[in-house]
């Protein structure tokens, strides 16, 4: 099974989770069995508006079913829900640590956006 994490850089499992979703620098796609990561550039990062929506579209197109990030706003939340992507949140850390937390069921599934929306 593959899950996506927002990533601040694309160096490997030592990379830190990016605190932003829509404007995250990269998405790390982690294969949980092999513990291998592939990075994709977040083409939504420089969107003039609706970055969270475009990022959700990107993950949906990649057939991702699970996302781990720090903050997810209301429009991105609606989009991810529509895409059938489960969202888990974490305060921060390296991808490797966060994946372990997820595997051990130590992360909370998100039922509501983490923060009110902002424009742009």
């Amino acid at each position, binding site marked *: 099974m593959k899950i996506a994490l927002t990533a601040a850089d694309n160096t490997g499992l030592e990379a830190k989770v990016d605190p932003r979703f829509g404007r995250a620098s990269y998405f790390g796609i982690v294969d949980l069995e092999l513990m291998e990561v592939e990075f994709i550039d977040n083409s*939504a990062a420089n*969107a*003039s*508006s*609706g*970055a969270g*929506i*475009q990022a*959700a*579209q990107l993950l*949906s197109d990649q057939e991702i079913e699970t996302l781990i990030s720090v903050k997810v706003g209301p*429009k991105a939340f*609606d*989009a991810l829900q*529509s*895409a*059938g992507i489960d969202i888990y949140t974490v305060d921060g850390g390296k991808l490797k640590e966060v994946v372990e937390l997820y595997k051990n069921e130590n992360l909370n599934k998100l039922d509501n956006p983490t923060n009110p*929306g902002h*424009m742009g």
Partner: protein
Amino acid sequence: MKITILSGKGGTGKTTVATNLALSLNNAQFLDADVEEPNSYIFVKPNFADRKELVWREVPKIDQEKCTNCQECVEFCEYNALASFGNDLMVFPELCHSCGGCKHICPEGAIIEDNKEAGQIKWTPDVNGLEFWQGELNIGEISAVPVIEQLKEHINEEKTVIMDAPPGTTCPTVEAAIDSDYCIIVTEPTPFGLHDLKMAVEVVKKLDKPYGVIINRSENDANQIIEDYCTAEDIPILLRIPFKRQIAELYSEGFPFIEELPEWQERFKEVLGEIEKVIE
């Protein structure tokens, strides 16, 4: 005659100038186009009663039966107001700029128009001799332009029109200034004031409007920074409103200072006289 009052920087005194100028004139119409936070009413004190009209803008709505999920509209929309997940095309009206492009590009004719309320317009035909109009943008709306456009439809060409523009130098300010005959740029004698004055000057030059400057919170020593620039650029300084405690106190209490300092009515009338000379 239509005069737009603008300023690069917010908080320089646009509303002070616009309201005091309008209240000094006979047969004037006032339009508060600073629709994100209109505040001229605080000084003019109009009674709108129930005179109100709504401003609508077009946003897309999907005819799901016709939509084949080709995603052409999703790729087209620069503002990500459309997204497609599985067979579900989602619209985010708050991100839509009402350009109509998605409707145009859809090969199936599956996009129909829906309306979203963008704001409202209120008015009163007479408050102390002034005809007063005000636009209000709804919270969360992405652009002030539709409200300003509709506000301008009520311009009365028979009167001297004073329009209080939104601060800054972006689309809403341009929308407020583009049909005017003259622009008054309000500034303050500070480095920020000068910096944003220069930006406002660039805008009115591009719009090819005659213009002049009013210095608010004017002080002899401090003014040099603005005076030097205006001299070098050959920009007329129409008026200098002094940095005086009495004016500040009247402002803080919601009173136009011309009421307490009636000699200023004459000075504002003289400003109008100067402007009339330039336009003719």
